[in-house]
């Protein structure tokens, strides 16, 4: 796929009345073990502008704003504030400068009141004693300014809806003398009229000369409130400072997707096409995994899904589109509000992981460290944990057999280093993922649910994982794959379901889709071109 023609970068003349931009980041580089998250990123933000950051998941947006918030230290690069070089050692240092960040997962203390949250770490106090009445008054003032005078400053934050919590987060940012606010997908949790209010607030702030760095996947929002757009791609700036209102969707999508790195995807088996013909014309082979009107209130709408032996089905969608929730419900980790899951035609007990594992469902969850691995344990014990009864007689383990069997599976997957006693936490992301896959191989699973299998896996190791996943499918496992990286879904899956806000908006064989079309569907919900 040749990257489409790059739009001519719009050269906006710098505002004549200012010598220096408010914020100027140059050459920012940040490397995590195995991944170069940022590779020489430059970003200029002017006072009073809404600067939108666009990029696919993993493009480096989150890392960049964490550097800006003082939460990550860059390995290289320079940050200038009104022309003066600064170092943001800690979040407090960033806050002192006047940088406030509203993260996607709001960082509020649920049990504390609205007022207490707004002034957390910055209490209205005299000699250590909280001036509760002053604090309450100022909190009410801030809430009024944000257009939400109805929020009671005394209620615990946990009692507020998501939109209210976001207002509290914003009030906290404004309680400092803030010059630049970073908002990470602020509209993701909001209803349309709440979004309108958010935009009004952004307008008020910029009118006061505050700069806003706005991250969103919704292009129509960027058009409405953005002044300039910068696009990140694979840790680099693909385009800086484009005019937000006039750059076309096609150009933006092209910038986000045109890759320097070409992933190597394994060949699909030749049998794929006859299989699809059979689906269309003749009696199809019975699916291994089948969901019938499966739904969870507030997470995803009734879903019908079939995955056959040897097939890879991909779910494409943004964070929050319900993809992880669907996988966890299929695996029994969440109980569906309606509908059912069948494995080889037999209905599964809802909300029971142990039962699901018994009939051959394996989940490789998104948060590998928190949800899959026993970080204190060795490779062998991580692999064998789901299949212990196989190595035991009357509860007594045959540790030699356990180790040999675990090793055979990790060898199949070319685990490196090939040491079954190595603590799993010392492995790279890709090899940790192999350990999780080996666990399910050892359990002889029939259905593999893969949630972001290449998250935190560096580019070189990805091709290897792709080959492993395809090999598993060829050996007869039915695979359901979730990824926010569209090329990954298109390159690996035989069939793709596109999700938007908990709903399947499109289903098609992977080779009939391309990245642009999927991104359009995912972001706008309507086919473009």
């Amino acid at each position, binding site marked *: 796929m040749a990257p489409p023609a790059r739009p001519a970068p719009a050269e906006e003349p710098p505002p004549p009345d200012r010598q220096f931009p408010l914020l100027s980041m140059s050459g920012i580089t940040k490397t995590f073990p195995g991944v170069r998250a940022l590779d020489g990123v430059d970003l200029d933000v002017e006072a009073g502008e809404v600067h939108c950051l666009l990029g696919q998941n993993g493009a480096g947006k989150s890392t960049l704003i964490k550097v800006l918030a003082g939460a990550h230290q860059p390995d290289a690069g320079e940050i200038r504030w009104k022309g003066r070089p600064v170092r943001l050692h800690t979040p407090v240092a960033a806050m002192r400068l006047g940088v406030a960040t509203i993260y996607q997962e709001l960082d509020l203390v649920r049990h504390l009141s609205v007022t207490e949250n707004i002034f957390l770490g910055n209490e209205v106090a005299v000699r250590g004693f909280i001036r509760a009445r002053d604090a309450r008054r100022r909190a009410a003032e801030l809430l009024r300014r944000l257009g939400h005078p109805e929020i009671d400053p005394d209620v615990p934050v946990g009692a507020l809806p998501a939109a209210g919590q976001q207002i509290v987060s914003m009030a906290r940012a404004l309680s400092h003398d803030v010059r630049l606010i970073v908002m990470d997908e602020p509209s993701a949790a909001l209803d349309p009229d709440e979004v309108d209010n958010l935009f009004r607030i952004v307008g008020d702030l910029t009118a006061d000369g505050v700069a806003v760095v706005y991250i969103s996947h919704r292009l129509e929002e960027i058009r409405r409130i953005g002044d300039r757009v910068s696009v990140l791609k694979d840790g680099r700036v693909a385009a800086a400072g484009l005019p937000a209102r006039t750059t076309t969707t096609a150009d933006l999508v092209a910038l986000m997707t045109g890759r320097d790195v070409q992933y190597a995807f394994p060949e699909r088996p030749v049998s794929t096409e006859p299989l699809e013909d059979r689906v269309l014309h003749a009696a199809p082979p019975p699916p291994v995994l089948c969901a019938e009107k499966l739904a969870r209130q507030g997470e995803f709408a009734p879903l019908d899904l079939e995955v056959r032996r040897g097939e890879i089905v991909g779910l494409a969608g943004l964070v929050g589109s319900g993809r992880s929730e669907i996988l966890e419900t299929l*695996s029994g*980790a969440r109980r569906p509000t309606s509908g059912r899951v069948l494995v080889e035609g037999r209905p599964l007990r809802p909300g029971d*992981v*142990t039962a*699901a*594992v*018994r009939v051959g469902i394996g*989940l490789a*969850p998104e948060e590998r460290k*928190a*949800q*899959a*691995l*026993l*970080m*204190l*344990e*060795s490779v*062998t*014990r991580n692999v*064998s*944990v*789901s299949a*212990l*009864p196989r190595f*035991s007689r009357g*509860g*007594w*383990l045959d*540790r*030699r057999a356990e*180790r040999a069997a675990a090793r055979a599976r990790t060898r199949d997957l070319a685990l490196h*280093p*090939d*040491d*079954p*006693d*190595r*603590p799993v936490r*010392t492995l790279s992301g890709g090899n940790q993922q192999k350990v999780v896959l080996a*666990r399910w191989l050892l*359990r002889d699973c029939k259905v593999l649910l893969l949630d972001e299998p290449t998250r935190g896996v560096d580019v070189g190791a990805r091709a290897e994982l792709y080959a492993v996943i395809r090999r598993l499918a060829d050996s007869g496992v039915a695979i359901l794959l979730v990824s926010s990286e569209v090329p990954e879904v298109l390159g690996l899956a035989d069939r793709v379901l596109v999700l938007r806000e908990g709903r399947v908006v499109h289903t098609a064989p992977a080779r009939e889709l391309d990245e642009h079309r999927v991104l359009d569907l995912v972001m706008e919900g309507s086919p473009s071109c």
Partner: protein
Amino acid sequence: MLSSPGSDAVKEPAPPPTQRSPARRGISAPRIGVRHLSLLGVLVALVAVGAITRPEQFLTGDNLQLILTQSSVIGVVTVGVTFVIIGGGIDLSVGAIVALASVWATTVATQEYGLGGMLLCALCVGLGCGLVNGVLIAYGPMVPFIATLAMLASARGLALLISDGKTQVVTVDSVLGLGVSDSYVLGVPPLVLVFATVAVLGWLVLGRTTFGRRTVAVGGNAEASRLAGIAVRRQRLLLYLLSGLCCGIAAFMLIVLTGSGQNTNGNLYELDAIAAAIIGGTLLSGGRGTITGSVLGVLVFTTITNLFALNNLQSDVQQIAKGAIIVAAVLVQKGRKTQ
């Protein structure tokens, strides 16, 4: 990586196709060994101190036997508590359960059933309390700290109620016969033998069974264990049952040892057991720990008590020393972890 190379050189070489990885069939044995070695060092140092300060009293057969006997009851409790902590929980109710079981098993009515009846009663009371703990924690809405704190209060209260605040003297001869100091089984006092048996069984169960492996998994990462198909709730229930059972055994040992049942039995056992487990290397957050370490921890504490008593030091000094040892042990472990 973490294990010191060469420390396992004694082990036989790996099966043919290994290229580089060291042959290590005794899984993680070397890493744990270092930690135990330092505890063993502390124990040896304490013995040396005893031998020097009280040469004619400390290193006598009678005194060493006394130390072991004193370690036995709390030792059995500690084995159960160690399992619970490794499994990610905590059990504050062990001392109270020991008291309740010892009182219940020595009521006049129970004593009529003789030795077997009393043993059965103690075990059942222990298991019953463990069941209540386990159900509340695994299937109910309670966190381990609160549920077992409630059990601590109510079991101790029930023990007081049953005994009416009085010491219940045992009149069954066969029970009394077990406790006298000159009765030996295989040359060892029977209580010590019970402790040794429980410890060895605990060691085997933790290291060599699916139950032990699942305990470590659930304590290390409950969510990952659940998604891996482990029945996490059932595992938690079983852990508290096991702890209760150990309390029942300990209660019966106390009855034999003192010839009576008292509602003050097992006072502060919960703290001693947790402390012994912690200095033995068990992570309070769960997921790692050994029975060997806990046994060594118990022996260290009992030896200190014995040393101080022989040197006529007050018990307040003992308490301070215990506190210092806990802090030192944790610091040593942290230090090794960050290396």
